[in-house]
């Protein structure tokens, strides 16, 4: 079920929340959690009930492993606990690897082999990472070196990092299942820390309706919905035209290529940050607070800053559960570079089993290494780029990296990059060249730009206006969570009617981009 579908908004959401609060009032928090869990499973199974056993099995196995590791660490059997942790992480990665990477690896090894035809279960990348995080946190808390976050097995979730007494009562199976399957984050994150969410799910006042939370949550949800339906889907149509043309070998001229990539950069930001806002808003309505997942990433002044602002929950996961365990920056500059590259390559691979995702991760790894080198050299020599230039350079690097991420393959990536580099020429609609004849010196007049928008005479001004609006929003306005309540009201006034139009009258509901990851 999609957050951006009428059946979710008008049916599932009110029923789920209504039942949740009613069960809480009549039978207490545990009953409310049980209701929520059932609703979560319905939400997941709506897409394809065939994969419900996988989700339930994964939750059951991980909970069992978590309890076992917890018991072992309480008994100071660290070595055994470590062994079970490794088994648990391997189990999760094995399941993920089978569903997500088996075909890819098979074809990398044997290109002629027939495809296995494995369907990727919805949300597997997210709930797998979520549960790896759970197991690792339990182990770390148990052995007293959580280091990067609070452990997930402690009922209150309070206290300093790693300082939880391992003897505290373990979290219940119901709470754990409700945490992993919690519908706001089940499908596409954010990847939340167990210790951040479990205590909230076990709070005694969880299932009491709070008007302030309902109003704030609904507002954030609607603003996220607008980001998705009004902005992301608009830019998505422009991006699709250009990238589809590239994948079919059509030669893209300078404007067609750049407009497609700029549109995709906006699409993926509005799509995923919109989804994250909706998740945050939904959780808030149920009295649960999620961490921020996007913090105006295109305003970043350097690539490291970008990764502190983009998909924050994944960045934190990669840092805390991959980069730091690999050694982080503790073993010299060369090893730091290797660790950065490995982390980003695996981060790219997490998005999908394709060389283009690996290329995207590799590009970002390279960017981070260059940034480290520049920062080190600049620090020694007192060099520093002016802020706007640094931001522009960062944005350019990020936008260029979206090309392999979005393109259907290597050929399409190269085709798009050629167009962006101007190697396919610079064409403009005849109408515009006619209005400004001087442009004929640099531009080839054509009737229409065939791979731009709807390929009609006014497509260029139309797409230009849309892109201008989109980039003005992301580069100059604060994001949803920085807005005051009054400003959120104005944002709703500006966009809610368009949101309703898209929700009820658009020809189809486009799925979220991150559903496929």
């Amino acid at each position: 079920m999609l957050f951006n579908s009428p059946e979710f908004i008008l049916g599932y959401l009110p029923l789920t929340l209504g039942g949740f609060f009613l069960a809480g009032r009549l039978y207490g928090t545990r009953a409310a959690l049980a209701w929520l869990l059932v609703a979560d499973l319905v939400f997941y199974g709506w897409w394809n009930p065939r994969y419900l056993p996988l989700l339930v099995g994964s939750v059951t196995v991980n909970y069992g492993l978590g309890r076992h590791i917890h018991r072992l660490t309480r008994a100071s059997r660290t070595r055994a606990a470590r062994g079970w942790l490794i088994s648990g992480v391997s189990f999760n990665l094995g399941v993920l690897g089978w569903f997500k990477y088996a075909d890819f690896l098979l074809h990398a090894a044997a290109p002629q082999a027939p495809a296995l035809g494995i369907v990727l279960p919805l949300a597997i990348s997210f709930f797998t990472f979520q549960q790896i995080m759970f197991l690792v946190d339990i182990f770390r808390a148990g052995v007293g070196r959580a280091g990067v976050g609070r452990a997930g097995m402690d009922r209150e979730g309070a206290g300093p990092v790693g300082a939880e007494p391992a003897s505290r009562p373990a979290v219940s199976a119901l709470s754990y299942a409700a945490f992993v399957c919690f519908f706001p984050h089940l499908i596409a994150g954010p990847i939340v820390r167990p210790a951040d969410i479990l205590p909230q799910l076990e709070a005694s006042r969880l299932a009491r309706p709070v008007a302030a939370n309902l109003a704030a949550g609904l507002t954030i949800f609607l603003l996220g919905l607008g980001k998705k339906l009004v902005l992301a889907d608009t830019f998505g149509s422009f991006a699709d035209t250009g990238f589809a043309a590239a994948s079919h070998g059509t030669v893209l001229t300078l404007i067609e290529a750049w407009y497609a990539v700029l549109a995709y950069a906006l699409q993926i930001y509005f799509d995923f940050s919109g989804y994250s806002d909706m998740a945050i808003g939904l959780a808030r309505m149920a009295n649960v607070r999620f961490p921020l997942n996007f913090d105006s990433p295109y305003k970043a002044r350097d690539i490291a800053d970008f990764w502190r602002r983009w998909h924050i929950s994944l960045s934190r996961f990669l840092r805390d559960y991959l980069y730091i365990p690999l050694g982080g920056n503790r073993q010299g500059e060369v090893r730091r570079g290797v660790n950065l590259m490995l982390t980003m390559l695996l981060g790219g691979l997490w998005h999908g089993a394709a060389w283009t995702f690996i290329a995207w991760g590799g590009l970002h790894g390279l960017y981070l290494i260059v940034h480290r080198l520049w920062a080190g050299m600049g620090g020694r020599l007192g060099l520093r780029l002016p802020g706007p230039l640094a931001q522009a350079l960062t944005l350019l690097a990020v936008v260029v990296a979206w090309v392999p991420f979005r393109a259907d393959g290597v050929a399409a990536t190269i085709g798009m990059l050629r167009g962006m580099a101007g190697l396919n020429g610079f064409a403009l609609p005849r109408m515009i060249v006619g209005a400004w004849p001087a442009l004929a010196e640099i531009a080839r007049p054509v009737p229409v730009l065939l791979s731009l928008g709807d390929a009609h005479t006014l497509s260029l001004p139309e797409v230009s206006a849309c892109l201008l609006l989109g980039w003005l929003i992301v580069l100059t306005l604060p994001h949803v969570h920085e807005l005051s309540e009054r400003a959120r009201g104005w944002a709703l006034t500006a966009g809610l009617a368009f949101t309703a139009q898209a929700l009820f009258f658009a020809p189809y509901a486009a799925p979220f981009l991150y559903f496929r990851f």
Partner: protein
Amino acid sequence: MQHRTDVIRPVTPGAGGFRRLVCAALASLGLYALLFGAVLDRPLDLGFLARQLDDGLARAATIRGPKLVILAGSNGPYSHRCQVIEPMLDLPCVNGGVAIGIGQDYLFMRWRAQLHPGDIVYLPMEQQQYTVGRSATALGPDAAIMFRHDWPTLGELAPQRWLAALFAFDLRAGLMSVIEMSLVAVGFHDPRAETSGTRNAWGDHVGHTVARAGTSPAVLAAMLAPPASAAAIRDGYGAGLIAGFVVWARAHGVRVIGGLPTQLDPAARAGILGPETLVPEALRSAMPAVERLSATSRRATSRPEVSRSETSRPDTAQPSARLAAIEAVYLRHGGEFLLLANHSHYPSAAFFDTPLHLNEPCQIAHSIMLARALAPMLGRAALAPPVALSAAAAECPGIAGAMSLAQGVSLSAGGSR
């Protein structure tokens, strides 16, 4: 990195949170309705379509006595020429086709006032006009035209059309309104006349010459709709609207004659599509190199409610079933049907920019054939076509064969074929 929760700036809406939310929602809807209902407009796109419709109605209003009216999508004006048919039948003719996305209910509603006993309406409706669904009909460009300029007609249509008309505008429509209004304000020169022709007094499209044509097999393939199944035609919401109009016309003494739109002949179609009926995506990017402003109608046509799998089911093996379904829309409701011997099929070289738009020589040739076929149905003698136009028709590819078939038409009326 410092961990942050969803609220960076503490926002703690009190009891007024919901009130503010409701106020914002109402303000948003009010502002939206005001802007699109009274301020913003799209004079180049929707205005173009509205003028076509208004011009046809205005011409019809000047005609006293029986007349022939052609109503269809854009295949009406592009592939039919009242300038030829009128002198051949000695019957005033109005070409009232506009665009495929215009809802039939709106089209028929506007024309009802200009149709009188003794009038004849010829409907070479396009496939999608039968299969189109209710919501796609409600969201066509006419919804925006009505909401901005034609509230009386909107008021006469079904209530669901009112809501759809209110919500016919997306963000792109808003931005395009600003752009189009600005262009008109600075005296923008509309390039369409130079690139694809214009309209004559009858409402025919003229000037879409072979030299200006932008077709190629790749272009046609990119725009070719897969054949609809007979069931999709029979059960289509659009078919119901057409049938309703036939019933209304019969009750008001107006003769309705259904017909086929001009379309690619089966050999050309098979040559383009091959065994697959789905349009190859590779060819979709090879759009016609003609300048088009009417994007709204294209977007409207890209909103099929019938699923792609349903419409793309290879029905080519049962063209007779499809034809029978189309005929039934007219014959079962008191109308007639005219099937030209060539089934209005033409080779790909006969088309201008889409698989429904004949180029000008073939438009004239098709109109000559149509007039000759209509004459016996109407009890009139078919006069000779105007000499200049007849000569132009000779340039239509494959015209010799087509013209020789002109006498061999199949007429259907009153339920018999």
